[in-house]
């Protein structure tokens, strides 16, 4: 760690700690209860015996209920969020909601026949990390972490880390590439995301 980075982390940490009502207010147990509920819902869908298409639909709903979609959308858009109008931001957030829940709802398909177990929680600079193990059919168990914050007013997850792979970073890369393909035209991106 270079001194500059260490200094920045320190400022970041102390800065966050001084803010009244910052993400620090979220207790570990509250974050854990959220993930317990989320995991119970996922496991219930897995065990429901519905058709795969119905399960994907259910997974989409779960994602929507438990995720802090506005903050994820804004993060994925990155610096381009600064030049966006309020109306564009609202439209983008809704388009992102559809895109992200469909994309990861489909991904949850791999969980069919498996289960997720909550292991514990720890504090992170912006909230609480809840650690889980995914035990999927025919695979070695792997780590899935949910990052939870209550900055939106209630406890919701804002990031999922699968074996070190950060979902928000992946989506910022993806949305950035999509925007580049459209020569930075946010309205076109919003329209295309809706159609995905």
């Amino acid at each position, binding site marked *: 760690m270079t001194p500059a980075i260490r200094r920045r982390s320190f400022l970041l940490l102390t800065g966050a700690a001084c803010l009244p009502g910052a993400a620090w207010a979220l207790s570990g147990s509250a974050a854990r209860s959220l993930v317990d509920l989320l995991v119970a819902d996922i496991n219930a869908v897995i065990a429901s015996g519905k058709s795969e298409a119905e399960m994907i639909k259910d997974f989409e709903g779960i994602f929507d209920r438990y995720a802090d979609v506005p*903050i994820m959308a804004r993060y994925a858009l990155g610096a381009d969020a600064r030049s966006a109008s309020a109306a564009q931001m609202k439209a983008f957030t809704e388009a992102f909601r559809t895109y992200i829940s469909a994309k990861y709802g489909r991904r949850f398909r791999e969980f069919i026949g498996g289960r997720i177990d909550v292991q514990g929680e720890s504090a992170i600079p912006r909230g609480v990390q809840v650690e889980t193990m995914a035990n999927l059919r025919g695979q070695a168990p792997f780590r899935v972490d949910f990052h939870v914050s209550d900055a939106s007013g209630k406890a919701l997850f804002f990031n999922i880390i699968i074996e070190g792979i950060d979902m928000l970073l992946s989506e910022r890369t993806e949305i950035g590439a999509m925007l580049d393909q459209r020569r930075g035209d946010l309205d076109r991106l919003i329209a295309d995301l809706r159609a995905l």
Partner: protein
Amino acid sequence: MYKRSQILPLVFLAATLAGCSAAPDGTLINDPHEGANRRVHDFNTGLDKALLRPASEVTEALPDALTDRVVEFADNLALPGMVVNGLLQGDLEGAISNTFRFVLNTTIGLGGLFDPADEAGLHERTTDFGQTLAVWGVPEGAYIMLPFLGPSTERDTAGLLVDFAIDPLQFLVPVEAQELQPYAFVGKKVISRGRFGSTVDSLLYESADPYAQARLLYLQNRRFDLGVSVDSSYMEGGADPYADPYADPYGDFVDPYEDF
């Protein structure tokens, strides 16, 4: 195969190669060869489309009872190399665990075709010389896209070469099993491509920039495996949505909740 006297120079070569482009700590992506890497990525994608993907559809249609034998045989032959690396890293426990695993699976597991060790709780302690170099403090180096083999780094590429040289398999199993190793390796690649088919497809063929996605996924996952703290990204320029001034809807900029 290599004589022991040839190994030491290789180790130094590896360390030199891996050290040739050290990036500052906390740098998420160090990719100075992006142009060349992207050309290799295109080549690999062509290979996937023409060969790997079609072949994986065939193996995916085969019963697991059959394909599991290939995967487990390949995994078993990789264990002696992992034992050596465990020792080089000072991870005695991992080396002993992998040794018992190899003995159990090679004997009771009928030459590694079956995996009774897993049921006994002796899971593979996956490691390689790339990790050994990391433990020894060699920096990660630049990102490299290898033809056929996919994403890597300078350190991991050096590790691959050394792993090939120090593999003690030749002293442990009959020549017939050694000759089968390359086939088992390729077979496992094809079978894995089939098992994770939809995930790989969505990465390679549905992403707006598959190269950038693969690079990000590989680097993050590799660092996770090497024990680089996951949540450190929040403090080192990684993903902190609540700290990014352009990404803070709860700050004084725009509140996405204000309209609800």
